[in-house]
């Protein structure tokens, strides 16, 4: 009887740890600062991936944006992202980008980079989505 209860406790602990892991990923904010968060459009949660750095510059009069994403969990996460470019009036520039898949291994950091469609683009947002675990 004692052995059964021990086995039951072990199983319960295992299940609890499995359930707890995604909850922890859910608690990780999508961005490391409110400034970065304001540039993101995230569908749901990023499953433990966080945008830690965001910078932009104009190269050859075209806006270029680079974001650093870090997977803060030990699990591999596949995210999808695309940039949205807008002009000074807030109107969309270009047709809209294709969603791009990106696998980020556990505890890995990856850069994502986007270049605007032309000099008309003066602002941007990054639309992101993560595959649920």
């Amino acid at each position, binding site marked *: 009887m004692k052995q059964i209860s021990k086995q039951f406790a072990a199983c319960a602990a295992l299940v609890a740890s499995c359930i707890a892991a995604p909850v922890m990923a859910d608690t990780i904010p999508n961005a490391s600062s409110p400034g970065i968060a304001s540039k993101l459009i995230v569908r749901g949660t990023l499953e433990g991936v966080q945008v830690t750095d965001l910078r932009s510059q104009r190269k*050859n*009069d*075209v806006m270029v944006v680079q974001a650093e994403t870090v997977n803060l969990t030990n699990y591999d996460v596949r995210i999808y992202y695309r940039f949205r470019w807008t002009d000074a009036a807030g109107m969309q520039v270009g047709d809209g980008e*294709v969603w*791009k898949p990106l696998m980020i291994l556990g505890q890995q950091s990856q850069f994502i980079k986007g*270049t605007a*469609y032309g*000099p008309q683009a003066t602002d941007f947002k990054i639309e992101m989505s993560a595959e649920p675990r």
Partner: protein
Amino acid sequence: MKRISSLSKSCALVVLLGLTLTACQTRLSQPTVSLARQTTYGDNKAVETVTNEFGSTDLQMIAEKMVGSLLEDPVLANRPTMTLAGVRNKTSEYIDTKSIMNSIQTALVKSRKVKFTRSADEMQQGVDELQRQNQSGLYKAQGKAKLGNMAAAKYSLEGEIVSIVKQNANTKDVFYKMTLKLYDVEEGSIEWQDEKEIRKTSKR
């Protein structure tokens, strides 16, 4: 026991009533002509993973990468003239490379950072129109396109796409690499070059 059975009876009644009410609700029709709802329009920018052969997402990702890389390069600083040359398909698949180049051309034209001249494929139509305007005797002189005024391309965009396929009983791995080069037509030198690599793995 009696209490339980009466409870279950009332529950069943409530469910039945709910179902009846749902059936009475009229569903609004949608502005479509299809009755068999097997065809739907999807997101044309979504990631397509139906098979691991070359697909729409690959085409769009290649075009975006090449356009972005070209736009941020100083070679386009003074709005140069450019023409499209061929893209060699060295993969084992049929890939419409003209479609990739058209997507790249569309984005570059819309950026207003480059002027495209007619490619070799498109030249005959241009020549025909010039001859019609100049040799048919149908048009008044004012506004007529003159012969000998075409702008020559300073740069030529050409490239190739290759693939490496590996597979075993369970897994198929396909690696695509598209290389694009911008040649200075007069000098024959490469003024810009970039690559886009895509790996697709599928399991049975």
